[in-house]
């Protein structure tokens, strides 16, 4: 076994879930076939970005993995010993659809997710500290007592991310977590997710339209349109003949954009796409 292989094996032992495997995965809603024949391996410690045009079925794929809608084919989670098990899945929705007027604080939300003690009876000191610690991971501890409806878009996404990270998930699903947030907020969020992946050894699937950011932060890119059109490192996907031919104008424009950004970023050690 090669040195790299040994390291890989050691890393395997360190993580809870090593592989999320989709085999012949498909989704049919009503009479429309939305996804078909998807084969993917998602490894831990890896940020997999899911890109593709609107209506390609990106969100549907996440919802099917989550178990919200029925799917065909096989979805298995394998751990270090290659045993199937039920993983802890964290999920950050595109935007949390909720009634803005609901009198629910961030702390209430945490408590409802994590403890059995009914939220309406208040919170224990210990739990409060715990929730504050969770929020500190995403630099949002000052939001603890704010009403959920009063948070800004970026703040809400960070709170949701903090919730998705506790208990520490094996698989983290992020559905366009930063759509509609300003550039700086996006950059912050991606940095955060990148760091988390390294720190907690998570597998992350991220749906995004922001190719520039994705190409800098993702380990692997899956180009989805009904099925997996292309899968590989950012470099591979964005230079793929097939992608260029089918989604040409858009991709070319985006890639130019990426190159431009790449030049600026390469100075401070970013990946050049």
């Amino acid at each position, binding site marked *: 076994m090669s040195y790299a292989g040994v390291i890989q094996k050691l890393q395997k032992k360190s993580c809870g879930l090593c592989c999320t495997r989709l085999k012949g995965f498909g989704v049919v809603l009503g009479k429309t076939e939305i996804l078909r024949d998807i084969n993917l391996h998602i490894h831990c410690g890896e940020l997999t970005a899911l890109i593709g045009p609107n209506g390609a079925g990106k969100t549907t794929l996440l*919802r099917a993995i*989550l*178990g*919200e809608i029925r799917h065909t084919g096989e979805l298995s989670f394998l751990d270090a010993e290659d045993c199937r098990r039920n993983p802890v*899945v*964290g*999920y950050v*929705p595109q935007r*949390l*659809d*909720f*009634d803005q*007027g*609901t*009198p*629910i*604080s961030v*702390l*209430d*939300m945490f*408590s*409802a*997710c994590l*403890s*059995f*003690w*009914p*939220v*309406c*009876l*208040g919170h224990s000191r210990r739990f409060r500290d715990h929730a504050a610690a969770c929020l500190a991971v995403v630099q949002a501890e000052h939001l603890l*007592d704010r*009403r*959920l409806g009063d948070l800004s878009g970026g703040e809400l996404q960070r709170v*949701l991310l903090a919730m*998705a990270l506790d208990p520490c998930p094996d698989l983290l*699903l992020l559905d366009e977590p930063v759509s509609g947030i300003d550039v700086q907020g996006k950059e912050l969020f991606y940095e955060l997710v990148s760091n988390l992946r390294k720190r907690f050894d998570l597998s992350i699937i991220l749906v995004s339209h922001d190719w520039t950011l994705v190409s800098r932060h993702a380990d692997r890119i899956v180009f989805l349109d009904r099925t997996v059109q292309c899968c590989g490192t950012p470099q591979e996907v964005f230079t793929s003949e097939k992608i260029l031919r089918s989604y040409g104008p858009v991709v070319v424009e985006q890639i130019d954009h990426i190159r431009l950004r790449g030049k600026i970023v390469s100075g401070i050690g970013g990946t050049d796409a």
Partner: protein
Amino acid sequence: MEIWYALVDRFLPFAWSHYTFMKNALLAVLLVGPMFAIMGTMVVNNRMAFFSDTIGHSALTGIAVGVLLGFQDPLLIMVIFSAFLAVAISLLKMLTGASSTDTIIGAVSAVMVALGIVILSRGGSFNKFLRFLVGDLLSITTKEILFLAFTLAGVIVLWTVMFNKFLLVSVNPSLALSRGIPVRLVETLFCITTAVVVTVAIQWVGILIINSFLILPAAAARNMSRNMQQYHLISVLITLFSGVAGLLASYYWSTAAGATIVLFAAVFYLCSLLIKLKLA
């Protein structure tokens, strides 16, 4: 009950508290109030005001079914019927897709009222069912109070076990599902609980206004609170206060107790709106 009577005699030496029926009614209000307060908060959270209204109206058909089957006391049949209806509505919701629920619920509501009236008015004897429409809190018996107490205990137990799940599902079903909560099951359980609670109390509050008593205190509390604890506390306080105040006012004005209570709750709601406007 003896203890309760003794307590009232001891601490509330007023003209109205000499009557046993007022003592009973007061106890009933103190039991129904908290039950409705904590149910109401969640009903409002789930945007299910229309649903609970329909359950209330459908009690008419429940009574009719009970009468057809020859029951003296239709309560049991009413509870079973409304629970069944709650399941049916959630199934309909699931099958037709969630977008058009108010149409479905509206249709069910109208059909159930019509069906109930048709059956009950056979032979022109609808008048004796009038008490269900308006509610008659003063006629409550000791046995029925005990039944209410059991229901309240049931709701409290359910709430300690399930509250967090109900809350998460009400905020966002997808998020709840990702936390491993069986969303549909929880939703259906909540629908059934709402149906049972509304139906149990309906004889005393009245079909026409029961929903207001469920919704108004919660809606008022919602305008004033910032977290769940405040929300529930304020809601319970409002129902208790408007319950007791409404009962006493109805005694002195000789009006229907249920409707008077609802008016007091409405005053609270108006005040909360003003407070909210002032804060905003």
